């Protein structure tokens, strides 16, 4: 399956530092298929105009393209209504919108917010700052030794005082896929709302917001074959209706007076200013592309690659892998460290051989502390990666180890 898929990604067909590019950094941002690039090109060449205003034909085409993309997103995550789909700049903006919009309005001193230690800074700092502002208490669920979340600890951390629970669908460091549906149930039993950071989920796992029953869900276009600068905030309609806008300006208003204004209906009241039209069109094309391949196929392919990568990486002496050993409990990424070689040096050596990986703290400093490391190396996979890419990674790592241990 997913045969010859690389041909849809023009960027992969190049040499880097004299070697064929092997891109293993899709968890940072994915590459874009020609379909997405063409859709945005076509939009700019034929349809570009501002949306929801003007009577002219291009304005209508642009509006149709923008709202058409919204319908594709709605269908992609099985939301009930397009009113529940808000376009944002990305996951970070989406989560900040919930923290500022819902959080500021609904939290009071002593209320509790629950997140986990494995959260990306984007799903940590907005809550930390909200807690500071409101005098609320931020509690953390500690992962198990294997990098998974246990429902016992989830139950022990969420209390009737908890008002907001916010958890990543998948960890960007350990790859752990978290039991979102079960955590949502526990949150609701305690009267809290459930926010899902799906930045590492949406590109790889089939999402059904009605089945999950989560209250908010955030993700980014650029990690799922779409362009940068576009993201999604899903929210249940009743919650969004009761939420005040976070940004004010054009596009989001109904009537504007000198001393008061009223807002457009959902979802537009949260989309102040000229929206990110071309990127929304690109995201729509990305969703078409993902649907054509099938999320189930992508997920199966990544589980297979993760299993292969874990097996192969384990054959390297002195290599430590972080996160669950069971490939079925993780998405397609593997984070590791090589004894005595700093991850930056690993990344530079691999880069000189055309292999792109990420090194650093992965925007998860509290997790790094919990793992007792300052930095790690991460190889992340997508539909366009195959076993040969992992073989090249393993060969590169062996060479890096030799280079640093034996040459000097």
């Amino acid at each position: 399956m997913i045969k010859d898929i690389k041909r849809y990604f023009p960027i992969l067909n190049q040499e880097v530092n004299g070697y064929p590019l092997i891109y293993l950094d899709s968890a940072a941002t994915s590459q874009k298929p020609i379909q997405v690039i063409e859709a945005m090109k076509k939009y700019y060449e034929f349809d570009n105009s501002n949306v929801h205003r003007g009577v002219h034909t291009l304005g209508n085409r642009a509006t149709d393209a923008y709202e058409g993309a919204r319908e594709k997103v709605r269908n992609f995550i099985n939301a009930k209504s397009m009113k529940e789909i808000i376009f944002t700049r990305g996951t970070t903006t989406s989560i900040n919108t919930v923290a500022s919009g819902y959080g500021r309005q609904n939290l009071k001193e002593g209320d509790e917010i629950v997140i986990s230690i494995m959260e990306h800074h984007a799903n940590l700092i907005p809550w930390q700052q909200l807690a500071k502002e409101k005098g609320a208490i931020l509690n953390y669920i500690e992962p198990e030794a294997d990098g998974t979340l246990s429902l016992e600890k989830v139950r022990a951390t969420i209390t009737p005082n908890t008002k907001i629970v916010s958890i990543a669908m998948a960890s960007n460091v350990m790859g752990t896929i978290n039991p979102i549906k079960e955590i949502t149930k526990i949150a609701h039993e305690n009267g809290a709302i459930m926010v899902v950071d799906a930045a590492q989920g949406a590109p790889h796992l089939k999402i059904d917001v009605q089945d999950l029953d989560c209250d908010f869900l955030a993700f980014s276009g650029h990690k799922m074959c779409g362009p940068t600068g576009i993201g999604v905030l899903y929210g249940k309609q009743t919650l969004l209706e009761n939420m005040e806008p976070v940004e004010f300006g054009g596009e989001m208003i109904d009537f504007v007076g000198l001393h008061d204004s009223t807002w457009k209906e959902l979802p537009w009241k949260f989309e102040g200013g000229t929206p990110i039209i071309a990127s929304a069109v690109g995201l729509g094309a990305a969703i078409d592309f993902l649907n054509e391949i099938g999320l189930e196929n992508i997920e199966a392919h990544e589980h297979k690659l993760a299993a292969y990568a874990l097996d192969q990486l384990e054959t390297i002496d002195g290599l430590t892998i972080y996160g669950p050993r069971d490939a079925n409990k993780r998405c397609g990424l593997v984070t590791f460290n090589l004894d005595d070689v700093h991850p930056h040096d690993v990344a530079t050596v691999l880069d000189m051989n055309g292999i792109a990986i990420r090194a650093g703290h992965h925007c998860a400093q509290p997790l790094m502390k919990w793992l007792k490391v300052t930095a790690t190396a991460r190889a992340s996979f997508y539909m366009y990666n195959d076993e040969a890419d992992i073989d090249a990674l393993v060969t590169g790592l062996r060479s890096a180890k030799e280079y640093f241990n034996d040459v000097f």
Partner: protein
Amino acid sequence: MSFNKNLDQLYRSVIMDHYKNPRNKGSLEEDSVTIDMNNPTCGDRIHLTLKVEAGIVKDAKFDGEGCSISMSSASMMTQIIKGKKIEEALELADIFSKMMLGEEFDVDKYDLGDVEALQGVAKFPARIKCATLAWKAMEKGVKEGE
């Protein structure tokens, strides 16, 4: 898989020697200026202590965590600034910055010694911040110690 010349330029043996056998590792006790600095994009961190007396850097020690480039650069930096006047230390920091940016500098003014080995870093833009961390900490420190 082979390694090209660029990589060998980046990881010269003198750099790896400083990485594996860092000079001036540790922390000065009394009357010292302390600077903690980190590189937020990658997590490298340095704890630098300097003893500055009568406008001269009498002693310097560092501790920290980071890649071979950042730690070897710290080791070399502490080595070269010991015994230097404050203005000389600052000038060396300036020279080092120019070296990283690939700009011209007066090559004859100071004997850069081991520091010269870091020249290859200039060809790796992603690694320049690794190399300059210790020098930035030193600049801040000697200014405080003045």
